[in-house]
């Protein structure tokens, strides 16, 4: 959980003596090395044969559950039949173009936001004022002639993405404020910030989700109910903000005190110093670890399935447990889910390595 993948971002360096060996001797230079190579090759071949046999040779490509029961390989009809359910959950069938469009919009917006040249305060503003509301309207409907769809019918991949992306976008400003509060020289504010950050970081995400889903309703006045999805979303935002605050704090500590003093001597007040001088420098430094954090949180949103929300992992699990396919397609279902999570996490990982290089060349 909240696995800060900062270390994966350390600049790649060649192993100290690896490069001096020739191509051939790198594999078969010494007897020990030869054994290691041969064992590795044997292992790779064995796994490849196993995987190919399961995925292709022994696999079933058409038919129903009955055919799969007999065969020893993968059951592709399961994936074909269940894919749409796995992706969209119980969202009304005829309206499923809306979550699809929302997903595409989200991907497009992320694609644009990933280019460092477009980064600005306006972009963050655009996310909060334009992109997220449009996504919400697409999903929820109720205006512009779109049929309203209650959040209880939301599910699958769109839900997973919305929870993680809205969560992280909104946790970002909160985390920055928390980091500033922690670095503040007003003791009461500092104590409040430290208390919040340390408590949240000291407990598992699942306990905060429990708080939001089981405990929070007890704190609401009569007749006031908050949507379960919103409650889980708020829990994720609060949880993420504490971790973001810790990363931002690292960035703030890296900005020399002279920068604060120079800003003050120019007559700027606290918020001006922060907004115009300190934060731009601090945030730039923490972008790569932040992406690492995002990968962790994207995976952590799977925990909402424990408190009963229908995210992507949950739709996959209920597809697996469908009576028609029960016990037949367990591996297939989890493999599809793993492939999806792997693809997006690996893409974000590659992006963080790109950023690492980008900042190294321009600000060395």
């Amino acid at each position, binding site marked *: *959980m*909240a*696995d*800060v*993948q900062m*270390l*994966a971002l*350390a600049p790649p*360096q060649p*192993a*100290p*003596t*690896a490069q001096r*060996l020739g191509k051939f001797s*790198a*594999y078969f230079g010494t007897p020990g*090395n030869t054994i*290691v*190579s041969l064992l*590795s*090759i044997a292992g790779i071949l064995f796994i490849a044969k196993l995987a190919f046999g399961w995925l292709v040779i022994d696999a079933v490509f058409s038919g129903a559950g009955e055919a799969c029961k007999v065969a020893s390989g993968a059951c592709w009809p399961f994936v074909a039949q269940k894919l749409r359910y796995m992706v969209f959950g119980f969202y009304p069938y005829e309206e499923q173009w809306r979550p699809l469009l929302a997903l595409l919009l989200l991907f497009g917006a992320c694609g644009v936001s990933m280019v460092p040249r477009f980064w600005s305060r306006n972009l963050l503003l655009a996310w909060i004022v334009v992109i997220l509301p449009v996504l919400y309207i697409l999903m929820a409907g109720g205006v512009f002639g779109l049929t309203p769809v209650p959040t209880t019918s939301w599910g699958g991949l769109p839900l997973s993405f919305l929870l993680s992306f809205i969560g992280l976008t909104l946790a970002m400003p909160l985390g920055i404020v928390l980091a500033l509060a922690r670095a503040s020289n*007003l*003791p*009461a*504010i500092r104590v*409040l910030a430290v208390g919040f950050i340390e*408590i949240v*970081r*000291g*407990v*598992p995400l*699942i*306990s905060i989700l*429990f*708080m939001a889903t*089981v*405990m929070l309703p*007890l*704190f*609401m*006045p*009569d007749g006031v109910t908050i949507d379960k999805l919103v409650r889980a979303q708020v829990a994720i935002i609060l949880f993420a903000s504490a971790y973001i605050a810790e990363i931002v704090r690292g960035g703030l500590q890296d900005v020399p005190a002279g920068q604060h003093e120079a800003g003050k001597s120019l007559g700027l007040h606290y918020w001006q110093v922060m907004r115009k001088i300190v934060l731009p420098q601090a945030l730039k430094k923490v972008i790569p670890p932040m992406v690492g954090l995002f990968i962790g949180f994207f*995976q*952590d949103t*799977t*925990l909402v*399935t*424990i408190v009963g929300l229908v995210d992507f*992992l949950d739709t996959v*699990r209920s597809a*697996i447990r469908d009576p028609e396919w029960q*016990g037949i397609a*367990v*591996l297939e279902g*989890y493999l599809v889910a*793993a492939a999806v*999570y*792997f693809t997006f*996490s690996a893409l974000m*990982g590659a992006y963080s390595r790109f950023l690492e290089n980008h900042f190294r060349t321009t600000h060395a």
Partner: protein
Amino acid sequence: MTFLHDMRFRAYFYQVVAVGFVVLVGWTMFATASGNLAKQNIATGFDFLTRPAGFVITEAAIAFEATDTIGRAILVGIANTVKVSLLAAFFGTVLGLAVGIARMSRNPLLARLALVYVELLRNVPLLLYLFLWYSLIILILPPVKQALNLLPGVYLSNSGLVVPAAFVESGGYALLACLLGGAAAAFLIRVAATRKRVATGRSNHGGLIALGVLLAPVLLLWLVNGFSVNWDFPTAGKFRLTGGLHVRPEFVALLFGLALSVSANVAEIVRAGIQAVNKGQWEASAALGLARGKTMRLVVLPQALRIIIPPLTNTYLTVFKNSSLAIAIGYPDLVMVSNTVMNQTGQAIETIAIFMGVYLALSITISLVMNWYNAHVALKER
């Protein structure tokens, strides 16, 4: 209105506003909650801890019966959480160290394989792996009736692994005393040997001697009177196995999943730590004629350790918190036991407060221990 521009006044003002806001929100929530609880006839307070639990816990690190108190049930949950976290941290660290060193191997094939291992584990959610391991155990292994009898007394089925349990009947305390005494003596010898090595610059066999001192008392005890060990062999009945030590599939799946996730993190941490050691250290060591293995052990790893410890602390804290995913596959950890208690008593606020408090306390303990160790190995500047 000059006081509005007075920095000291402003500082106090902001702080009073912030604290006031927090107190106000807290007070409102408290008031609403107590009103709601009274209306729904939910008791408050911690009296429920002393009431009998009335539920069984399938796997308890400390003895537990349904007639025991709820408080003891929560203790069982804590013990189970600690047990699985410690084991996962241990196995994960050992495995991760091996994978991390494999990633640094001069053999590109092995290094690449280690990379694939790490990436596969880090880019797929832990929860998905837990579900996967758990369902694979249930699916692939035969039901209890056709349990595989691997060795005499060892049965493997989809309800877990059953092995003979060993009970040390007599001489148990003597054995324990020998173990502890040996460990203490070995530790002291090790410290003295290191001090002597640092002082004289000559290598000695402190490690070997310490190992001998560690094992000798136990061996001696065994040779002198032997300990009478009683074995409780499981017997296969018609529907279930009775006796023996039962390792349940939930525990195996959780331990396996957590240990693998720790190993991937540890591998990355070890690799980053080794790479962060200056290249000149390798070259200087090679120039002194040290072999690669010795360079690693005596020159590079001690320096890498300083870089490794803070992120390693984070990994251990993470695995401890991640053990709470146990509830998804039904291993009775702290969260799952608390959840049962919550459903039974309806006292969500108290129960959640208890388990959050326990997690906080244990997190802080782990942090303190690791910080102490970090200060111990940190570079001491003159």
